[in-house]
């Protein structure tokens, strides 16, 4: 048979894998510098645990049944597993907990949508801290991470779901209506929101707010615009917090990247306050996002405020390619031929001097061609008399002095560009 991968799953070959590794490191280094510790969680979780925390998993998670008949799911995100981890493993420790992760997640998609069913999320969770200071920490870190990734052009949309919640509460039009409003907001359907606002039972003040608020976006002045559009709906406290968060981001020097946007709604429904999304120009989908989910840990009997975000590694990589800022990964320095026993010993010394070196059993011009093919800077041969560089025709040319110098930084194959 000629094997294929299942729809929506793919292999990652060395060149891309090296770039992904470099990108993960850039992001991880930022989070580490903020004091976030790396954690890993299992690829599978019990379905009941996931569903207790996030009601909107239906149709999203890959489900499995194990030999005990237990229903399991491949993790569709990492936020809920980390909340589960904190609730079950760190309950007695003094918070807040600052955790980071880089993990593959799995989501079901219908066929023929060209969508991956496995992708990689790099993110952080700040568990046990609430208020604008914690929210601002998360958003500032998001900005810093995108800068560190190498993106020059990006923006953050920041809002709060509390405003929507307050409007729905103020409308007094019942639970079914409220659920329909949230469904329409999640579907980003402004036409449906207008229709729901026009229903007869809706308090006029809330109806006006419902029409206006999802269309408000801008700088800090958007918060004032929302305050007047939703006046009397009881969301002043939430807006005060958002304003303080914005001012903290100004102090952190990242507010120029942040737009206040009350239409931001994440696809998972567990968010209770701050919501953020990151965008790159020209990319039709967000780079990532997150927010505050103060109810999730309560579902695991360990109530605690929490906030975080995740970036889609693949999406950041695409944006980097578009903006020409992708990681330049270092290639091979040398291909080394010669008598095998000798070559192994010399290779060890080369590596000790910082070279990236691969062994070859080819000789002469074939060895040079292999070096070119692999993008290596040098073709070397280890002989009883010492270590020699081959010239382009495969003739033994210059000796390499002892002790071995540091690895070269230019390459024939890469047109002499700095690596």
């Amino acid at each position, binding site marked *: 048979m000629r094997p294929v991968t299942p729809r929506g799953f793919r292999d990652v070959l060395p060149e891309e894998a090296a770039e992904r590794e470099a990108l993960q490191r850039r992001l991880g280094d930022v989070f580490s510098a903020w004091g976030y510790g790396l954690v890993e969680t299992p690829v599978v979780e019990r379905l009941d645990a996931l569903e207790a925390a996030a009601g909107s998993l239906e149709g999203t998670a890959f489900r499995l049944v194990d030999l005990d008949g237990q229903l399991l799911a491949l993790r569709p995100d990492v936020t809920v597993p980390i909340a589960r981890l904190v609730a079950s493993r760190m309950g007695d420790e003094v918070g807040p907990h600052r955790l980071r992760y880089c993990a593959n997640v799995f989501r079901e998609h219908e066929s023929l*949508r*060209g*969508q991956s069913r496995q992708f990689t999320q790099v993110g952080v969770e700040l568990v046990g801290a609430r208020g604008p200071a914690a929210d601002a920490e998360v958003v500032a870190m998001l900005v810093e991470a995108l800068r560190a990734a190498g993106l020059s*052009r990006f*923006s953050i*949309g920041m809002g709060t779901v509390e405003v929507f919640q307050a409007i729905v509460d103020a409308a007094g039009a019942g639970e079914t209506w409220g659920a329909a409003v949230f469904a329409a907001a999640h*579907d*980003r*359907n*402004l*036409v*449906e929101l*207008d229709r729901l606002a026009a229903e007869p039972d809706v308090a006029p003040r809330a109806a006006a707010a419902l029409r206006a608020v999802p*269309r408000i*976006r801008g700088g800090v002045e958007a918060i004032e615009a929302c305050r007047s559009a939703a006046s009397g709906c009881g969301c002043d406290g939430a807006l005060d917090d958002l304003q303080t968060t914005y001012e903290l981001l100004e102090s952190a020097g990242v507010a120029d990247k942040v*737009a206040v*946007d009350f*239409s*931001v709604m994440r696809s998972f429904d567990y968010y209770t306050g701050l919501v953020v*999304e990151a*965008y*790159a*120009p*020209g*990319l*039709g*989908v*967000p780079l990532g996002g997150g927010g505050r989910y103060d109810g999730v840990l309560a579902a695991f009997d360990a109530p605690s405020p929490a906030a975080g975000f995740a970036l889609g590694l693949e*999406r950041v990589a*695409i944006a980097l390619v*578009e903006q020409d800022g992708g990681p330049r990964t270092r290639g091979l320095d040398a291909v080394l031929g010669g008598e095998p026993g000798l070559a192994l010993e010399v290779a060890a010394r080369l590596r000790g001097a910082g070279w990236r070196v691969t062994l070859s059993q080819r000789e002469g011009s074939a060895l040079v061609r292999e070096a070119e093919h692999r993008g290596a800077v040098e073709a070397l041969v280890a002989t009883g008399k010492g270590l020699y560089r081959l010239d382009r025709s495969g003739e033994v040319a210059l000796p390499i002095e002892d002790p071995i110098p540091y690895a070269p930084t230019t390459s024939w194959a890469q047109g002499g560009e700095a690596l």
Partner: protein
Amino acid sequence: MIAYRESEEGRPLRIAVPKGSLFADSVRLLQAAGLDTGALENPGRQLIVRTDDAEYIIGKPTDIPVYVAYGAADCGIGGKDVLIEAGLDVVELVDLGFGACRFVVAEKGGTQAEVSERARHLGVVRVATKYPVITQAHFDARGIQVEIVKLNGNIELAPLIGIADVVVDITATGTTLRENDLRIIEDVLPSSARFVGNPVAVRTDPRVSRLADTLAELSARDPEAGL
């Protein structure tokens, strides 16, 4: 999936426009909104039409949500019917009013007794449609078990040639259904043209929300024609 489109500063707004029955009204509305649509009126076989302020991508109506959701177009005009059926992540910004039609359930005249007789013995109703998602949701909500046969056109044929008991189709006036001896037995939902935006473009490109505001004003002025 993500569309790869260069994102240079100052590029024209990319607007997806549906071919077919919504095309003429879409062009007229965009023109009323102050856009230069001259080149769009007779595009010939061109599928991408560029003017000073916009780049129009002309596509099949069912492909418009795909272009917009994946970011190949910043915004576009599409029927509510295809938006529901596609189920993709686009922001529905304005009900443009034109292209109004409704989804209905119809059956061959005088066959109601036969259909319910068959349903009693066979347990299911066979439904032919171009819109399996909408159809399934409708019958699920009513607690009726159906077998859906997806066809790509001439849905009204299905009951006549015995492929299905009833059809779910869109109709503006009901003429085609009547001419084929089909009787409307139930309304499913109304549809009309919508202005939709890519979720990122709506939030990062002020031109999309400005165009949405203008279109909303125009549609409110004359909800019948959207003009």
